[in-house]
């Protein structure tokens, strides 16, 4: 089967594009208990709700548009975010997401549900995004990418007592400015979210991707490692540096606000 989408260059997609995706390594399927509400609701498909997943696949195979629309609306934001981990241009990420959905349609007839639909989908996305990145000679290998901001301390040494301090070496000299003064309601203010969103956007790419997938999307660590081909240790370093930087940004924001 050949699919062609209008309005996109290179939108041709053949069935064989899906070869190799059918048997996604079981290791990257999500088998861990999910504790985060957002992740749980968004990816209920991957967490063992096999009945509804089988039902959804059936409906898709029967050509039920609502099933396809639901999938597209549920997963496209995450797919695009993951695509942007590999390709730089928004438009290219958009095309990669589009190609992924077309590959899903082409391959759904042969999908054997050995992995979850969601795992399969993200595997297709990752492969296509890498192919695109390679074509653009802009391959970003996360495994080779450091934190991109050196490996210095995540909190300025000036905020701590010096190592030769007689009583409290390395303890806070300027402790964290409390956020609680702003109150829980204020913490959720739109402005706070804007500060956080800008902070995320300005993180070095590798940190941003890991923080996005872990904390914004709520992926478990092992899925992020699998998708980005990162070791657990490197994933933690990127998460640590990204989170630490964001905390500092919010601390500054609340301190100015107080």
């Amino acid at each position: 089967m050949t699919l062609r989408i209008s309005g996109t260059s290179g939108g041709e997609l053949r069935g064989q594009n899906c070869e190799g995706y059918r048997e996604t390594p079981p290791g990257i399927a999500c088998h861990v208990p999910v504790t985060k509400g957002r992740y749980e609701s968004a990816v209920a498909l991957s967490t063992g709700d096999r009945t509804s997943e089988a039902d959804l696949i059936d409906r898709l195979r029967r050509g039920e548009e609502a099933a396809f629309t639901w999938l597209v609306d549920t997963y496209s934001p995450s797919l695009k975010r993951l695509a942007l981990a590999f390709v730089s241009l928004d438009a290219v990420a958009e095309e990669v997401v589009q190609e992924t959905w077309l590959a899903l349609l082409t391959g759904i007839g042969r999908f054997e549900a050995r992995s979850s639909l969601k795992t399969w989908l993200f595997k297709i996305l990752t492969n296509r995004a890498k192919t695109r990145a390679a074509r653009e000679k802009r391959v970003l290998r996360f495994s080779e990418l450091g934190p991109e901001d050196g490996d210095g301390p995540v909190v300025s040494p000036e905020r701590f007592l010096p190592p030769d301090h007689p009583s409290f070496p390395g303890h806070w000299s300027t402790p964290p400015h409390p956020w609680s003064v702003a109150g829980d309601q204020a913490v959720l203010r739109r402005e706070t979210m804007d500060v956080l969103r800008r902070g995320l956007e300005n993180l070095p790419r590798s940190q941003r991707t890991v923080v996005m997938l872990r904390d914004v999307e709520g992926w478990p660590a092992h899925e992020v490692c699998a998708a980005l081909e990162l070791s657990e240790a490197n994933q933690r370093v990127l998460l640590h540096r990204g989170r630490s930087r964001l905390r500092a940004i919010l601390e500054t924001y609340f301190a100015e606000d107080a």
Partner: protein
Amino acid sequence: MAPTSDTDWQPQMGDDTLDEMACQELVEVITDYLEGTLPTSDRARFDAHLAMCPGCREYLEQMRALIRLSGSVTAKSIEPATRDSLLRAFRRWRDS
């Protein structure tokens, strides 16, 4: 890239479980703590330090608040035009 590097600023850990953890070390291992990957001895030092340090309790609380807040950042979806073209492709696929 190693998970921890032996740079000057980074306190050595794990050698002495009785060794008190300094705030400066705590902020560097906080993600390992939250991820549950901190070695048991360091975890004990972390908890012991936390019990007596309001500054680090605040720091930990802020990290947790940040993670919660990040969960409510909304993702940008695909362009409406892309979605439309996908639905058209779906109908062609269905009717083929």
